């Protein structure tokens, strides 16, 4: 019986025999945290009695959640992280102004590579699987252990395969594919599983859309998402990869726990309604839902292509008078590129606010918190009760195209209609 890509990657990092459900101890290529999860990991790391990190090159620290510091408490947390980076010689520390949102930044920096085993103390660490690696979220204590030991125990996940056929319609992309998939299988539909994405549709997708898909596997309970590297992956890594990397692919006779196969040719843009990422409908079924706020950005949709799509829709148009729009480029580099390409000017001309990169609004932290009764359409990843603010506020999740179209219409709208109008 053949092996899946995830099984092969794990096998290359352990002496133990890799088989689904087995416990293994695997070497770690990158272990990172942010300003919420690092302070706790630092505390644990010191309590464990660790004197140094296993390899300062393989640790990254990214203050991005409550930064630029929201208040004194968040400033204290960020300070702890900065001091730890200095004290332990952590090279990959990304200060505000030179970094951005961790899951947009680390792949952009070429620090996450095909064949790697990566852990991050953030649930959306599964994003990097789009490059053909094993990447998963852990808690702060597990991360601290990995910093000390350079390894961590894992249960080898069973793999579910998702094959997408057909040709996507205009304005349909990675976000719609993952929302559709979560809508089909539910928020625990891939619990503890590796989700392998494949098929013609995936092969045609740009890298930015692939990151969006793998970013949200955690919303289906997945341990990791993965896409086999191809020429698009290699092109993305050219001039970017900071180390050598290894490409793995699934064997034709690899064993999958389950295979889902869909033709997406007729798929319309998808929207997840409050209060679950699995509560998904086509955009045409939600016309007329008024919105107070639109957020475009985050680790899910804060990449250059996301901003390009939003700019295409907003160009020469005005945001609806009753709506506030906040756009967050994912990193400083994305911001700079968007500036050069004229997207930022388009956003400002349309009446949108453009913010420095931060996770702030996605988790109800700062820079776009919702009041009681307010509705937001957002390109982020979670719409739980109270996620973006008051417990009686409402979050709809969608692509940058749908979010931008809704910004103009003042209600949930399809990009196609807005572009026609």
């Amino acid at each position, binding site marked *: 019986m053949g092996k899946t890509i995830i099984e092969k990657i794990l096998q290359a990092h352990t002496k133990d025999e890799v088989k689904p459900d087995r*416990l293994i101890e695997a070497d770690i290529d990158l272990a990172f945290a942010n300003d919420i999860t690092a302070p706790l990991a630092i505390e644990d790391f010191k309590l464990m009695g660790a004197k140094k990190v296993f390899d300062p090159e393989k640790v990254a620290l990214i203050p991005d959640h409550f930064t630029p510091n*929201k208040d004194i408490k968040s400033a204290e947390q960020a300070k702890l992280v900065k001091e730890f980076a200095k004290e332990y010689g952590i090279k990959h520390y990304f200060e505000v102004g030179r970094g951005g949102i961790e899951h947009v930044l680390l792949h952009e920096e070429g620090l996450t590579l095909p064949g790697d085993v990566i852990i991050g103390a953030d649930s959306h660490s599964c994003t990097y699987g789009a490059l053909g690696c094993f990447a998963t*979220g852990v808690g702060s204590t597990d991360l601290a252990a990995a910093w000390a*030991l350079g390894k961590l125990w894992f249960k080898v996940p069973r793999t579910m395969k998702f094959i997408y056929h057909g040709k996507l319609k205009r304005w349909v992309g990675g976000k719609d594919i993952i929302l559709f998939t979560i809508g089909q299988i539910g928020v625990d539909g891939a619990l503890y599983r590796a989700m392998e994405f494949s098929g013609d549709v995936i092969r045609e997708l740009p890298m930015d859309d692939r990151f969006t898909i793998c970013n949200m596997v955690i919303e289906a309970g997945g*341990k990791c998402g993965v896409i086999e590297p191809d020429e698009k992956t290699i092109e993305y890594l050219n001039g970017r990869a900071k180390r050598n990397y290894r490409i793995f692919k699934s064997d034709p006779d690899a064993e999958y726990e389950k295979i889902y196969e869909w033709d997406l040719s007729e798929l319309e843009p998808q929207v997840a309604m409050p209060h679950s990422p699995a509560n998904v409908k086509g955009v045409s079924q939600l016309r007329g839902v008024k919105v107070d706020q639109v957020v475009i950005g985050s680790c899910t949709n804060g990449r250059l292509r996301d901003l390009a799509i939003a700019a295409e829709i907003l160009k020469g148009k005005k945001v609806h008078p009753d709506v506030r729009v906040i756009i967050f480029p994912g990193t400083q580099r994305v911001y700079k590129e968007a500036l050069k390409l004229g997207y930022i000017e388009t956003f400002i001309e349309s009446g949108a606010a453009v913010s420095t990169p931060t996770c702030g609004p996605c988790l109800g932290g700062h820079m776009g918190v919702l009041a009681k009764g307010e509705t937001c359409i957002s390109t982020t990843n979670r719409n739980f009760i109270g996620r973006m603010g008051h417990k009686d506020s409402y979050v709809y999740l969608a692509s940058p195209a749908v979010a931008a179209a809704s910004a103009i219409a003042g209600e949930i709208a399809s990009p196609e209609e807005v572009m026609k109008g």
Partner: protein
Amino acid sequence: MGEILRGRAFKLGDNINTDYIIAGKYTKTLDYAFLAEHLLEDVDPTIAKRIKRGDFLVAGKNFGCGSSREQAAIAIKYAGISAVLAKSFARIFFRNAINLGLPALVCDTDLVDEGDELELDIETLSLKNLSKSIPIPVVPLNKIMVNILREGGLVPYLKKHGDYVF
């Protein structure tokens, strides 16, 4: 070790995510007592005050889904909860709880009603519903988790052993 924990059951539904357990806005601190005060606030604003030391959280499936924030497991532990029981756990929360020395046990939680008296033997991880006079079978933890839990969490475990033991 060999400690017997007794307390009342607080029942919760399916898919209780870590944002519900502790909202994102509260995560910018290492003040554990503060976290415990805001436990499950958006689900039930009174629950943190009603929980007494030794009580149990008893949930449906996929408990702890969403964010990896370990503050969720910390808030539960420092609220005085003995153990979390659920039909299934989201994987990051599951590891976080065990790493903190907080038992997270998979069992048929339909065998427990709100307010039932429960008893857990920490050494054997055997669970009883005292109100209904029935034992509740628990899905065994894997050997690594058992070892970590026995030492009271991953930090004390590593302090003692210095490495993983398989």
